[in-house]
């Protein structure tokens, strides 16, 4: 990593809740991480973690059935060498106790995706979703 840690920076963007938006989520993240001068390997991992979390919103919080105008927001903040990525959505309330990866005989995208997120990030936390949001997921990583 270059001068990443020296930058304090926050950006957020709203996306329609559907699988076609996942590519746009990745483009947004790559653009922000470019500004933060995060090195390529770490950038790839972070983009994967964020895309998996966004995918979980589409697949689980909305069961692939979101209203056509439903939005999710992704916010990336970097302050004092700490990267924080927040997700806001208005899907089915997530029970954090039920968010875990599955065993090998039952590998599905959500299970493996959650494993990827946990492998890449330092912490995964569901916070109270202030109105109008219902779910507020926060991923953090020390840079």
């Amino acid at each position, binding site marked *: 990593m270059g001068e990443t840690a020296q930058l304090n920076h926050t950006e957020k963007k709203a996306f329609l809740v559907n699988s076609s938006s*996942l*590519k746009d989520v990745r483009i947004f993240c790559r653009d922000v991480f470019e500004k933060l001068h995060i090195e390529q390997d770490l950038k790839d*991992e972070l983009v994967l973690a964020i895309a998996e979390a966004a*995918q979980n919103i589409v697949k689980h919080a909305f069961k692939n059935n979101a209203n056509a105008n439903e939005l999710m927001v992704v916010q990336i903040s970097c302050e004092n060498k700490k990267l924080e990525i927040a997700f806001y959505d208005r899907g089915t309330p997530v029970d954090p106790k039920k968010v875990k990866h599955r065993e090998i005989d039952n*590998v599905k995208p959500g299970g493996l995706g959650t*494993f990827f997120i946990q492998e890449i990030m330092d912490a995964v936390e569901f916070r109270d979703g202030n109105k109008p949001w219902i779910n507020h997921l926060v991923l953090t990583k020390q840079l």
Partner: protein
Amino acid sequence: MTYKVEEIENKRIVHLDGEIDMDVADKSRSTILPLIEAGHEVQLNLSKVTYMDSSGISVLIESKKLSEEKKTKFELIEVSKPVEKVLAMARKFL
């Protein structure tokens, strides 16, 4: 994502290109699984895949399982660096 299928006797070499995520996983699944279902030996070339997430890995797992059921072969013959990194992480899970 785009794809191309080469036919060599009973072997089918599937070349995937681009990004493989949830949005296109079904397209890759419907490209690969029918070939295995038909009893072909399938080789998958991922050298031009620039991004793969858990949805793509799931397609690989499903393909491998189906090939075992059908007693045929399914193998990866070339893998790009981004895919190799995701596979390495998935292996910890598997």
